[in-house]
């Protein structure tokens, strides 16, 4: 028993020392969505292993020590002081090793989420009960988000009324949108397609209907769309002027 505990504690000390080294391994490209999928995969393995170990232990003990004899008593030995301390330090070290390992990985991915690439294009987002507005600059404001493929996008977001939260599951991004504060998310649209974009902070009656699609299109198509929106904006402002 004593030598087993000794060996286990040594290997655990080693594990703790090595945890950050494991974490530095570079298994994915620096892209939040891909990084999310990669870390999620690792973490599912991590918790599945822990879950299976504890489940097997529980099933085994409940099966092995069952009895019909109501007068039987358990025979678990009383722990010596050393064993009691070891049974604290060893599990605690194991759990902490896993915690620090995951923290290191999580922190790395977090930095990718928060570090906006220099070439990112900025679009301002304003949330209302219950719709979104996207401000491309030069007074071009749309109610749908269209972005060119391969162009990193940063959304700077605020709200005009209550809390909302911008969520694009396809890009693995989400951040609350608040009155009186500006928050941001960035993403890298790598595939052409339509991505659901919805609200995930409860905001009242039509909270569940505050969704649009993000359209990721080829650069040429984007340019054409942008020209068209620009023309429409110009026409609208002319109309306003004549009416005014």
């Amino acid at each position, binding site marked *: 028993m004593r030598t087993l505990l000794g060996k286990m504690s040594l290997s655990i000390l080693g594990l703790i020392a090595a945890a950050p080294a494991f974490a530095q391994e570079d298994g994915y490209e620096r892209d*939040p969505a891909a990084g*999310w999928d990669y*870390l*999620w995969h690792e*973490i*599912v393995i*991590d*918790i599945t292993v822990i*879950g299976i170990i*504890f*489940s097997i*232990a*529980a099933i085994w*003990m*409940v099966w092995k*020590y*069952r*009895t*019909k004899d*109501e*007068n*039987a*008593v*358990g025979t*678990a030995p009383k722990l010596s002081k050393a064993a*009691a301390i070891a*049974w*604290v330090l060893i599990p605690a070290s194991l759990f*902490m090793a*896993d*915690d620090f390992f*995951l*923290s290191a990985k*999580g*922190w790395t*991915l*977090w930095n990718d*989420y928060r570090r906006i690439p220099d070439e990112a294009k900025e679009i301002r987002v304003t949330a209302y009960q219950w719709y979104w507005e996207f401000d491309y600059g030069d007074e071009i404001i749309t109610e749908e988000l269209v972005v060119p493929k391969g162009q990193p996008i940063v959304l700077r977001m605020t709200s005009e009324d*209550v*809390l909302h*939260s911008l*969520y694009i599951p396809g890009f693995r991004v*989400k*951040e*609350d949108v*608040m*009155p*009186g*504060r500006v*928050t941001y998310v960035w993403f890298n649209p790598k595939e052409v397609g339509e991505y*659901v974009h*919805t609200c*995930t*902070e*409860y905001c009242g*009656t*039509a*909270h*569940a209907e505050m*969704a649009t699609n993000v359209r990721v299109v080829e650069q040429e198509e984007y340019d054409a769309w942008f020209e068209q929106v620009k023309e429409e904006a110009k026409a609208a402002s002319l109309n306003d002027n004549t009416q005014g």
Partner: protein
Amino acid sequence: MTMQTFKEWFFTTDHKRIGIMYLVGSMAAFVVAGLMALLIRLEQSNLGPTITDNPNEYNSWLYFHGAAMVLAFLIPGLTGFFANYFLPLMIGAQDVAFPRINAFSIWLFYGAIILAMLSFVIPDPPDVMWTGYPPYSISTTSNTAFYVFTLHLLGFSSVLGAVNFLVTVIYMRAPGMKWNQLNIFTWTTVAAFVLQLIFIPVLASAVTMLLFDKYLGTNFFNPEAGGDVLLYQNLFWFYSHPAVYVIFLPACGILFEIFATMCKNRVFNYKACVYGGIWGIVGISGFVWVHHLYVSGMPDWLRIGQMVTTLLISVPVGLLVMSMWGTLYKGAITFNTGMLYAVSCLFLVLSGGLTGIPLALTAITIHLSETSFVHAHFHFIMAMFSAFAMFAGIYYWFPKMFGRFADGPWATTGFIFNIVGVHVTFIPLFIIGVEGMPRRYWDYQMFPQFEPYHQVATVGAFMVATGMAITILNWVRAAFKGKVAPENPWKSCSMEWTHAPNCPQAGNFPNPPSVTDDWSPYGYDDREANMAATTDPGFPAQVKPAE
């Protein structure tokens, strides 16, 4: 019921009767909030309007379900009913320190229940979710005041209860009973009340500011006038994360009592469990609230710092879990319905606890926050682990409370419906949560592919409803007509079984017990010596247990 019995119950200061009244009140809240859950699941079972075309109605169901389950069922069930009934019996006390304050607590609780139920008849019921975030809770036309006043009443009730029970444990333990001779349930309850005492005032101040903002024109949370919307969320979760442990810890305490008795074993590594596990959780609980605000625009350093503290919760929780598993080791395990629920809790705590690990990581939570993954995660811990632990405790202590067994084929049938039902409900929600299904949605037109999963979940909810209907009817039947139980039917060493008779009368103990240093509530290895370590020979010696 005659006038006399009505008066006896209405004016009672007996901790056991107050406990039973907490049980009835919290189960009533559970039933109504459970019906809300069925309405919610029905509405979600199909795309488009299913049973209501008014989202506001759906939102008020969500509000009632969440607020009532957490604040009127789980917390009062665990710290009201279980603590009231069993804690004085476990420490050998004849009542709590302040019986009349205890009676005041229960009537405050009933006041809160009545106020909460009134939300079904007023024209503009609260629709602010149990979290009540401003500015929505301020700008909404619904009646946020009901939410605030309900919380105030429950808060007063809990704070008074906390003071009462802490004083009881500190001053009214049986003569000779040292701290390290307390039951684990007593420890977990003490820890839960310490948390309530520290953190409830923070919640109370937050919702009071909400009230002032909405009705008196102050601007605590109004950015246009220099207020800050995030202030409320910080205050709310500074209480409400520890509130999870106010529920989790006594639930674990109940399980420890059942495992120790049904395995006839000492609690594995008692001191590590108490000082590392229980008090470790209390120590860290105040430093992790930001994990509820990972996508709320908090400063980066806070989000990363509290990612580490949140993950470190796994250390004290791990020690608790090691002690729980260790208590089974080399046990002499016999089964009753309480033990069935308790064993299922071993797996529920794994599913619920381990799915919390990805949610501790800030970057992973960015995608999962406010999805049905989170919804399923906390239901596994709160709705299933904690509620199943309560049901385990009710079955286990049923002979103590009513002098009759509630075990039997109906109890097992109810258990099977419940355990299968909760998995059928929540596993689909885990899956679509990872795919991006948001919570608190009346409808999900943008995600038509999730409809089959919602349908499976709805089927599961009705299985649970069936199981709970069987379970509750079975309790009511057993309380009046169940098989009569002998004293100490599970052959426990704990004081509520050995020294207090079934259905204890006022004063609890025929001979108030005192103990020596050799006594332990888990002294199974030498029962005779353990009984000899108390002044009163106790029940196994006085009453021959039925063979």
